[in-house]
């Protein structure tokens, strides 16, 4: 009897059908896009052969947008409209951003996420990030020769919900299908671990341009399990530049510089910092607009001196992560260094001293995150091969909770819980006849709500009047595999339900995103309706393929009438996908997803039963 090959979910059924997927490292200073080609993860270079795209967006008066190297020159000439390090503004309010006073931008003073007034109008950090992502998407599609199935976008592990949601929104604006938000240190661990067949506990120390993460992972038999993560979402190479910039101002004894001079001096400071990694003394020459000249030299020792406390700021989170993982420095087998800022010798020395071992610097700290994301994207897009049988278990970096009486936080999900995770908590009314209840969702470790990040507020209405304390309000938090939270609330005795997807206090509403999509220059040229129809057609195609593959394997799990219903639904999807009625097609997709839920659940049951029966994936036979 011939053995039939059973494809597990997630494994490609037709090996020749390669779906185009990329990993994108959307960095503070530089961004990259990578893909898996012939089984090997590679960065996709621009036409000049450069992998890095400086994360700089220049809005020009006549309506053009320059991104990357082209925009770099505009930094000092047109600093108000040449936006750098926009990642620092993602999901942040104006008051959260450090060094606002020395930034050249025209900030809009309003509630919620920071906005910048540019020559092309008011821009949200989400739109600016989308402009960077669009360039990477275009680069990837040109290089791969087709439309992308999806992308994995990396985020700092220590990003909170608002920052993650902002990143996902930016990808959506850029027309990318986000397969997953992946934590940067985890991406690096995948790239490093798979390459080196690593086993044991590893620390990933990731100091980028604007963010710092430390993740402790255990790698065993193809499982990448994050044990704990910590960090500082507002600490990075930029801060080292800023210290040096302040040193230059102090030592040059000049009047407060113009915004153009300030930007120029900051660029000189960054360049000097980079040179100090290889040299013990570096000159800093500059000519100001006033004609004044600056001629200074900084030694490595002086630089170490003025930045030592920044280095120190990375150690406390590192200690915390280890403690949360229940480990000591000596338990760590290797320390993987990621991010351009880890090139600084005094960072390497401090980390080496802390862990009692030389950190691993044999990989390119600029590229390793994008490469790991590409490997993950390849698997998530459905190009999984038998040897890609690895599993990634990541955690939520910061606790999630609700505000209770007296401005205190009630934690619902604690930091470093493996995701996805759901938890329910019950609350009650405090007044007789109370019919509504307001909830304030926060993220952070502190006891006082005012010390945590406000994520969102929502209300549950229509609670039947009862005496105080009689109502039972169950609030359920669900965190998905992207680390994003959704919250549902229900009064248990009446069943009144209020379900919300957390709309961050520092985020954009669905309407705002829709508005940005409509006004996007890309889409103005394109008929919105036609674009929508095409998206639905792609989705219908994906749904038909997936359902057919499921039927080929597991049709016997369906009764005859259920099979007929699914076949009829597939036929309807095919007909509508060939037509031009976007609304009808969208409705049919929703219906089909609903109709196949039972089938999906039964297939999953079967898979779980097989696991219980001790059958390994590669031993399955019919």
């Amino acid at each position, binding site marked *: 009897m011939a053995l039939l090959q059973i494809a597990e*979910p997630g494994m490609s059924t037709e090996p020749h059908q390669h779906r185009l997927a990329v990993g994108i490292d959307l960095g503070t200073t530089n961004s990259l896009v990578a893909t898996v080609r012939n089984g090997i993860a590679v960065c996709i270079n621009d036409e000049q052969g450069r992998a890095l795209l400086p994360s700089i967006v220049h809005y020009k008066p006549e309506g053009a947008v320059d991104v990357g190297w082209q925009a770099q020159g505009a930094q000092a000439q047109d600093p108000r409209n040449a936006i750098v390090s926009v990642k620092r503004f993602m999901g942040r309010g104006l008051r959260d951003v450090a060094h606002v006073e020395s930034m050249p931008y025209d900030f809009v003073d309003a509630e919620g996420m920071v906005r910048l007034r540019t020559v092309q109008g008011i821009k949200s950090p989400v739109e600016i990030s989308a402009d960077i992502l669009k360039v990477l998407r275009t680069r990837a599609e040109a290089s791969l020769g087709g439309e992308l199935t999806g992308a994995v976008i990396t985020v700092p592990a220590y990003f909170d919900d608002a920052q993650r949601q902002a990143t996902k929104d930016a990808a959506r604006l850029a027309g990318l299908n986000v397969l997953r938000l992946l934590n940067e240190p985890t991406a690096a661990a995948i790239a490093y671990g798979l390459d080196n067949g690593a086993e044991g506990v590893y620390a990933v120390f990731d100091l980028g341009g604007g963010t710092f993460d430390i993740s402790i992972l255990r790698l065993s038999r193809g*499982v990448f399990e994050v044990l704990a993560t910590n960090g500082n979402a507002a600490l990075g190479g930029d801060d080292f530049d800023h210290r040096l910039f302040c040193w230059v101002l102090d030592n040059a004894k000049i009047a407060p510089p113009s915004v153009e001079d300030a930007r120029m001096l900051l660029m000189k400071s960054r360049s000097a910092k980079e040179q100090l990694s290889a040299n013990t003394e570096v000159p800093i020459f500059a000519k100001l607009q006033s004609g004044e000249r600056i001629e200074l030299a900084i030694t490595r020792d002086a630089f170490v001196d003025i930045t030592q406390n920044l280095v120190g700021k990375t150690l406390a989170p590192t200690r915390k992560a280890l*403690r949360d993982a229940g480990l000591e420095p000596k338990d760590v087998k290797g320390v993987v260094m990621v991010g351009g800022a880890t090139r600084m010798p005094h960072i390497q020395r401090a980390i080496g001293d802390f862990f009692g071992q030389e950190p691993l610097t044999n990989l390119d700290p600029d590229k390793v995150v994008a490469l790991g994301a590409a490997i993950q994207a390849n698997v*998530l897009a459905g190009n999984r091969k038998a040897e890609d049988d690895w599993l990634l*278990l990541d955690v939520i970096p910061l606790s999630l909770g609700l505000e209770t009486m007296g401005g205190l936080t009630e934690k619902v999900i604690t930091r470093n819980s493996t995701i996805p995770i*759901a938890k329910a908590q019950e609350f009650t009314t405090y007044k007789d006849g109370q019919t509504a209840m307001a909830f304030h969702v926060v993220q952070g470790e502190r006891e006082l709500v005012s010390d945590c990040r406000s994520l969102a507020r929502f209300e549950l209405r229509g609670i039947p009047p009862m005496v105080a304390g009689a109502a039972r309000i169950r609030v359920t938090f669900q965190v998905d*595999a992207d680390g994003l939270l959704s919250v549902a609330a229900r009064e248990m005795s009446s069943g009144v339900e209020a379900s919300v997807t957390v709309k961050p206090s520092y985020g954009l509403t669905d309407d705002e995103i829709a508005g940005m999509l409509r006004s996007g220059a890309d889409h103005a040229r394109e008929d919105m309706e036609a674009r929508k129809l095409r998206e639905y057609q792609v989705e219908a195609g994906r749904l038909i393929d997936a359902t057919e593959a499921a039927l080929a394997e597991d049709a016997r799990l369906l009764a005859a009438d259920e099979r007929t219903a699914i076949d009829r639904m597939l036929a309807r999807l095919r007909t509508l996908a060939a037509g031009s009625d976007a609304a009808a097609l969208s409705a049919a997709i929703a219906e*089909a*997803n609903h109709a196949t839920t039972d089938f999906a659940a039964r297939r999953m049951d079967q898979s779980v039963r097989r696991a219980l029966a*001790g059958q390994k994936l590669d031993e399955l036979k019919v």
Partner: protein
Amino acid sequence: MSTEFNQDFFTLFGIAPGFHLDPLALETAYHDLQTRVHPDRFAHLSDADKRVSMQWATRINEAYRTLKNPLSRAQYVLLLKGVDTATESNTAMPPAFLMEQMEWREAVQEARAGEDVDELDKLLARLRHQHAGVVGEIERDIDRTRDYHAAAAAVRRLMFLEKLQHDILDAIESLET
């Protein structure tokens, strides 16, 4: 949801119900199951598949978290036996134990006020020793003597110790930052 989904955590992982368990067997079963149900396997499939996958992965994470930690495992086993340790709140705690708790708290407060991290570390080590002793009692009460009410009493003491451990870690953290 299906019967598979709602079965108890021990059945879900295919391991014998009881307090004592082989951590490696638990971890292996956990990884095997997550490999099959995790959302990363279903990212390219339909919304129905993604939803079912997230529910399953969430459930399996909950099961693993519950069984991995001795306190939550003991509470879960007792719940299966019909003893709800949460509702029988701290009635009838032995006075000697309560006295000891007060002494612990004072020692932690004193070390915190004196900013003495070394002392806090020492307290933590002593506490962990005591913690292990209570876990041993629970194992005996559940697995050998099957005295579930004695086990429930030990579980309540363990809750005190975990709270204390949490406070010490908090104190260390606040002194280090």
